[in-house]
């Protein structure tokens, strides 16, 4: 509890800054979980016959179709349509109004709350149309109607006269008489005068023999609404409901008039489903008795009556089975036959937690209206299953096809596919189905981040007159869409058949129609104008320009357009290694020529101003890109980047124990993180010791951060027992004064063996040195890198250290696996450490960056970084470091043989050649194999080269020329990016900076931790409905295709002006998703 003084202070602060008094909000709901809809109002009792003036008009519940008809659009100044038989015949024979009612089930209190709204076209809705009624006006507050113990689902009976609840807590059902409930809530005096209390009938579910079936229900659906408008309600409910009983492995079809099970679907212990009669029995769960048998546990149901085909199908999902059962229902809505949809389940542990069936849909079309009867892609009907792998599986069940669709096909393979039917559902396991995008969990639709889907339903959204929504904007839904609630409170939308957008990639402007936005069953994107180009309007004509980064992603209007870099890539260099004038010699992201109306210039291939084909190839999978992410390429950089605000690939600085014994030097971590981090042999372990500037904070209690007096390495202490540090200083001197950088030997999930690391010249050629003399030349060159002078003027002294060209067995071989000679710094016994660079120590004639210490030096926990060797680490701020490493059966770290070739995060300076015959987009060769990734090739690089006057290093006019030249390059592909790093090595300059005439060979000049960063914006940004539930548990389709989201969770407010709530219910208009009614 907050101390009272703090509380008072908070109140005062709030009071001073908020002068508008806030009335306490009346909370109406208490953890809602489900909703059902009804229609109530004036009803002429025609009994289905023609209307006459002498027929009685009553206030009554009636089929929901009656309210649907009253809500149909109609011209201004004309009366709303009325159902047949309900026409106004005279002033006296006028049925008056009717309204929709929502019955909101609240599980914990076991009550039903009432909501009400008028009949009117959906496009006339605004906020505040839906209100919660008080079901018991005589009791203070807003009250619900008690229906049962732990009810789990509510449904309206077939004719709209009763609300039925399945009560798990009491293993029975309740029937709420709608007439009595609404009458009591809206006319309490009349209800009391007529002694008409709210009528709730509890009834047992029985089998055919009349024996009670006391099983706990998990889900319920009612048969499709029917009934004749004009008939009076009967004394009992009408029609069938299907109730799922998981522990009985049964979906029971219950006649709601009698409570008897009359049909159903039951699973045997092997999971085989069969149609049953009412001759069933179940464990008495509410009596605690009965053994629970094996078999699928059905927990979710959906029943869809397709109006075009008249198909009636019941989908059943089981919590412990990868099979969705589809029951074909007859005209009486009873099962006629069963079929299975088998969802891919390689781990053998898949379960289904929610299902939804779409209508029959004509696939394809982009004209802005629903074209079910003339669609190019033929017809499909999908079943959606939220599965325990946190994805939404999709299968096409049209004509009992029952094949699962792969929603994760890598768009690189679909770029040129124009067959809408193919793109509508690519069957899982079909040889013709291309590979998935790397990192996909499976074939199902994935939400973003760690979102856990909880519920889905499908909505048909047509265009309407006076539609002011802007074509191409995310909020303009025309076609069929799914709405998916997630436990994190986000509500996603799903393109099932978007009839307002391209169906395949537009060859003329591919960036306008990327695959994830074209094809069926993909999360809907939330950014507008994806096809925007670097153009400006001149005299009414769009003309290309180059001086633009595209829309400001941080602007008040929000982001838009396609993926691109924000500004140019930035470089971060260690100081004193490369002179600023020479940074052009460092590797860089390829630049291309932009031909613009304003100017011609070199632009990054990642930029908005890059040519369309370049943008198309650089960003091959929009869905593979996070909405906004910074990517860093760090030479020999870390494989882990977690900070206090992000957790994607492990802490940047880790901590483990270090052991030194006869088996060598080993980092041991009981959490076994190393394969997960992607460590490979020859990677670098940089021990970080402790930071002496922080005192002993980095060390355990009882330890001190000790710095050896001879150490020349800044900021690198070592945690040692306070009482031992001085005593061990001498014994640990070599360790404590070195850089403490090691090479990884063997890798296992819990152990890394560390090898002492020789000090190698930074400019040692990537394809190997040839002689000691060459090494000495390159050592001198390395020193000159720091000089701002042109080579002809540079008098930097030669490097006084000695280098030997030799194979270092403790470092990686060359790209073919052969020994690679490197320039290794050497020392003499006479001079010892003085022969070595600071931080290197002399050991057996070689300068070492890290040596094997006595165990006593490393008894404290060791802080360290894991860095890649001989490569850039490619790390996304949200994606992290990508790698293909897994643990083998012995605990060792190995490359996953099944990993996608795009699952890489290392970008070297020298690689195997690219294959010119391979598909440039996918890298796939004709024989089905893939070219190396990364791979080396020659590309055109456009840049501003210095324009020296002949024979001098004096700039001419202009000082630079825009030149396109062939350049050595490394092509790198990952899930969402294909980028090209040019000039991985540099031959040196002959006379002037940047003349490239040095002839030194393939010399790498990148210093450790040299970093290139680029922010990529406008990646995939899911279109979310603008509501903020705390814990939404259900999405359901309401009247007029309205979207209802039921939020069971508590919202705990920290603001005095915002109430804490115990659940909410949202109504969102599918034709206008910004129109939201909120009940709380």
């Amino acid at each position, binding site marked *: 509890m907050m101390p009272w003084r703090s509380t008072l202070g*908070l109140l005062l602060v709030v009071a001073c800054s908020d002068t508008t008094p806030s009335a306490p909000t009346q909370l109406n709901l208490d*953890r809602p979980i489900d909703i059902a809809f009804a229609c109530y109002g004036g009803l002429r009792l025609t009994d289905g016959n023609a209307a006459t003036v002498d027929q009685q008009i009553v206030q009554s519940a009636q089929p929901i179709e009656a309210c649907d008809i009253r809500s149909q659009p109609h011209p201004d100044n004309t009366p709303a349509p009325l159902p047949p038989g309900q026409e106004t015949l005279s002033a006296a024979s006028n049925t008056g109004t009717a309204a929709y009612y929502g019955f909101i089930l609240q599980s*914990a209190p076991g009550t039903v709350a009432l909501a009400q709204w008028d009949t009117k076209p959906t496009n006339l809705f605004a906020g505040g149309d839906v209100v919660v009624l008080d079901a018991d006006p005589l009791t203070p507050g807003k009250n619900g109607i008690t229906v049962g113990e732990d009810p789990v689902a509510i449904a309206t009976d077939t004719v709209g006269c009763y609300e039925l609840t399945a009560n798990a807590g009491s293993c029975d059902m309740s029937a709420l008489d709608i007439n009595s409930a609404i009458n009591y809530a809206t006319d309490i005096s009349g209800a009391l005068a007529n002694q008409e209390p709210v009528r709730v009938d509890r009834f047992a579910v029985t089998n055919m023999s009349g024996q009670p079936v006391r099983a706990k229900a998990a889900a319920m659906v009612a048969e499709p609404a029917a009934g004749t408008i004009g008939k009076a309600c009967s004394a009992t409910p009408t029609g069938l409901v299907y109730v799922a009983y998981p522990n009985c492995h049964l979906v029971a079809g219950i006649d709601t008039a009698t409570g008897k099970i009359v049909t159903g679907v039951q699973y045997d212990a092997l999971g085989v489903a069969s149609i049953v009669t009412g001759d069933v029995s179940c464990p008495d769960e509410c009596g*605690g008795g009965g053994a629970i048998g094996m078999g699928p546990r059905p927990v979710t149901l959906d029943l869809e009556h397709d109006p075009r085909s008249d198909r009636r199908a019941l989908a059943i999902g089981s919590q412990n089975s990868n099979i969705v059962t589809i029951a074909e229902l007859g005209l009486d809505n009873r099962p006629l036959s069963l079929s299975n949809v088998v969802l891919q389940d390689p781990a053998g542990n898949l379960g289904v937690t929610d299902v939804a069936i779409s209508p029959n849909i004509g696939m394809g079309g982009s004209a802005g209206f629903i074209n079910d009867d003339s669609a190019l892609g033929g017809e499909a009907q999908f079943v959606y299953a939220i599965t325990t792998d946190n994805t939404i599986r999709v299968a096409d069940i049209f004509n009992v096809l029952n094949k699962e669709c792969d929603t994760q096909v890598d768009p690189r393979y679909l770029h040129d596919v124009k067959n809408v039917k193919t793109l509508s559902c690519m069957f899982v396991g079909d040889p013709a189905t291309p590979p998935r995008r790397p990192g996909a969990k499976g074939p199902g639709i994935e939400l973003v981040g760690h979102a856990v889907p909880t519920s889905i339903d499908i909505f048909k959204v047509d265009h309407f007159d006076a539609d002011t929504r802007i074509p191409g904007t995310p909020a303009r839904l025309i076609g069929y869409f799914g709405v998916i609630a997630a436990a994190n409170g986000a509500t996603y939308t799903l393109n099932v058949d978007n009839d307002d957008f391209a169906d395949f990639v537009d060859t003329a402007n591919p960036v306008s129609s990327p695959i994830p936005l074209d094809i069926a069953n993909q999360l809907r994107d939330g950014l507008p104008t994806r096809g925007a180009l670097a153009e400006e309007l001149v005299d009414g004509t769009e003309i290309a320009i180059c001086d633009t980064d595209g829309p400001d992603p941080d602007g008040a209007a929000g982001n838009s357009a396609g993926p691109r870099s924000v500004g140019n890539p930035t470089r971060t260099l260690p100081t004193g290694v490369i002179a600023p004038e020479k940074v052009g010699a460092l590797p860089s992201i390829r630049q291309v020529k932009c031909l613009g109306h304003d100017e011609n210039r070199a632009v990054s291939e990642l930029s908005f101003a890059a040519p369309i084909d370049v943008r198309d190839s650089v960003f091959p999978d929009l869905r593979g890109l996070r909405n906004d992410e910074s990517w860093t390429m760090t030479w020999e950089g870390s494989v882990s980047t977690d900070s206090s605000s992000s957790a994607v690939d492990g802490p940047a600085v880790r901590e483990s124990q270090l052991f030194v014994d006869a088996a060598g030097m080993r980092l041991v971590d009981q959490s076994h993180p190393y394969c997960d981090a992607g460590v490979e042999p020859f990677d670098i372990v940089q021990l970080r010791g402790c930071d002496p500037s922080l005192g002993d904070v980095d060390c355990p209690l009882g330890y001190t951060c000790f710095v050896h007096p001879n150490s020349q390495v800044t900021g690198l202490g070592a945690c040692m027992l306070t009482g031992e540090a001085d005593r061990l200083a001498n014994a640990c001197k070599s360790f404590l004064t070195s850089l403490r950088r090691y090479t990884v030997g063997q890798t296992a999930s819990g152990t890394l063996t560390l090898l002492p690391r020789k000090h190698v010249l930074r400019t040692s050629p990537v394809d190997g040195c040839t002689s000691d003399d060459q090494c000495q030349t390159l050592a001198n060159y390395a020193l000159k890198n720091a000089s701002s002078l042109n080579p002809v003027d540079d008098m930097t002294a030669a490097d006084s250290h000695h280098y030997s060209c030799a194979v270092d067995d403790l470092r990686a071989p060359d790209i073919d696996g052969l020994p690679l000679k490197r320039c290794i710094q050497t020392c003499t016994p006479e001079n010892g450490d003085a022969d070595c660079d600071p931080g290197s120590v002399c050991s057996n004639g070689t300068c070492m960056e890290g040596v094997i210490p006595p165990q006593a030096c490393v008894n404290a926990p060791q802080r360290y970084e894991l860095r890649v060797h001989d490569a850039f680490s490619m790390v996304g701020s949200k994606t992290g470091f990508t790698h293909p490493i897994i643990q083998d059966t012995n605990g060792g770290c190995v490359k996953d043989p099944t990993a996608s070739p795009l699952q890489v995060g290392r970008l070297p300076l020298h690689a195997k050649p690219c294959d010119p015959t391979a598909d440039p987009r996918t890298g796939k060769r004709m024989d089905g194999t893939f070219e190396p990734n990364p791979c080396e090739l020659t590309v055109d690089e456009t840049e501003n080269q210095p324009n020296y006057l002949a024979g001098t290093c004096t700039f001419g006019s202009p000082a630079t020329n825009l030149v396109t030249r062939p350049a050595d390059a490394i092509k790198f592909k990952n899930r969402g990016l294909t980028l090209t790093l040019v000039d991985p090595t540099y031959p040196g300059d002959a006379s002037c900076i940047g003349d490239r005439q040095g002839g030194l060979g393939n010399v790498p000049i990148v210093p450790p931790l040299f970093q290139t960063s680029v922010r990529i914006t406008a990646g995939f940004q899911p279109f979310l409905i603008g509501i903020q539930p705390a814990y939404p548990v259900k999405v359901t389709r309401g009247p007029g295709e309205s979207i209802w989201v039921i939020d069971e969770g508590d919202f705990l407010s920290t603001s005095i002006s915002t109430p804490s709530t115990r659940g909410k219910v949202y109504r969102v208009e599918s034709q206008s998703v910004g129109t939201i009614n909120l009940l709380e």
Partner: protein
Amino acid sequence: MIRRSSPHQATLLGVPRSKAAVLFSSGRFVFAAGLVACTASAEQVRPPEDQFFFPTGAAVAPDDTRLFVANANSELRYDSGAITVVDLAIVDQISLDWTVAKTVPDGCTQDPDHIETLTCDEARFIIPHTGARIGNFATDIAIQDRGAGNLRLIVPTRGDPSVAWVDFDGSKLSCSTSEGFALCDETHRLAYVHNNPDLAVLPDEPFNVFADSANGYAVVTHLTTGAVTLINSPSDGNATIADVTTGIFAADSLTGLRGSTGVAGRQINGSDLIYVGSRSENRIQTFTIGRPVNDADPYFIPSNFFFLDSVGANAGSSGDTRGMAFSSSGDRLYLVNRKPPSLQVLDTSLKTTGYPANVGIAATDICRQASTLSVMDSGDGDRVYITCFQDGQVYIVDPRGQSSVEDILTVGRGPYAVVSAPTRKKVYVTNVLEDTIAVIDVAPGSPTRNRVVLRIGEVKPP
């Protein structure tokens, strides 16, 4: 992550012990009380051996024979708290006689409001002369199995603050050289790191505790400082405070407090990866425990962390973790969060890389102000039992699939700790505010499944 407090926090830890601690030690509490009131003798304020008084923490022996109950003495009626030992065989026998034959033994009555429940005086269940006295305001009990029937109880107590360690040899608890219902001596009451008052004191508000029997240590969380304390507890030696780490979690933006709360361990190849939750941040920090080869004290080794962003985050309401527990396989972590009130299920199975996945896979809305939980598979899969202090209820959640509430039981006033005995198919709940233990039958197929069949202790009036 900062290994331990910044310099000014270190100073805070190094200040002399709190007044409460000084008063408690060596019986000086009694002396102080006498100064103020001069009304009660030592014998008069000696806690009873055969009664519960504000039972908070509880733990079941690994062989399911004993229930250890920590009595918090929250209204300071007595001079100390206590641990009492309940014979679960007697509990089983009386509850069985009651549920099968409706036998009502002497001293027991049928609960008039919950007719399926028998209420009995606790004395018949508490094994005489087995208890021990500890500090006030005990919060939790963890059991370290030292083998051959020997146990060690690790008991954080807020009053001092300190951590008591009490050995159990199969017949009685002992934490002192004195005989009888003795108060734990200074050796058994851990208050200083490395037993060195000059190094650091135990941080305030010890909260939850987890013990790793195989590796001989326990981890204690601290509710208001966010510190985490490592207790070195070799099975053949004394327990000591080996390490304290602070600064792990960010401070609550409203209160400024940091809080470490739930703690649980997941076995990976014989070692535990310790998961620690927070009341002030929606983050789970993991640790391993390092043992240096020179036999110096063990220390914390911080490992990866992850955020609880799969429930409620979009509404800006995610966090305030309380109880945490793993499934027996370690593949699932069940975690009680208060914002929004939810039981969250995390997949902690090992990925192909050998490291736990640590991702949310399901959640269930539960009561507000939930505190602790217990996980047990009594024959038909895991169930999670969650205490709801405010509502006097226990939520029973079936965590399979999307997870769902299977039952909600009214158990008594102020339910706090919930523990389970798998072989007995029973769950035990301490009702702090009424001085009782509720016994829930959870046997599959039992007619009284998920019902409070026995209430141990006469209900104390509000």
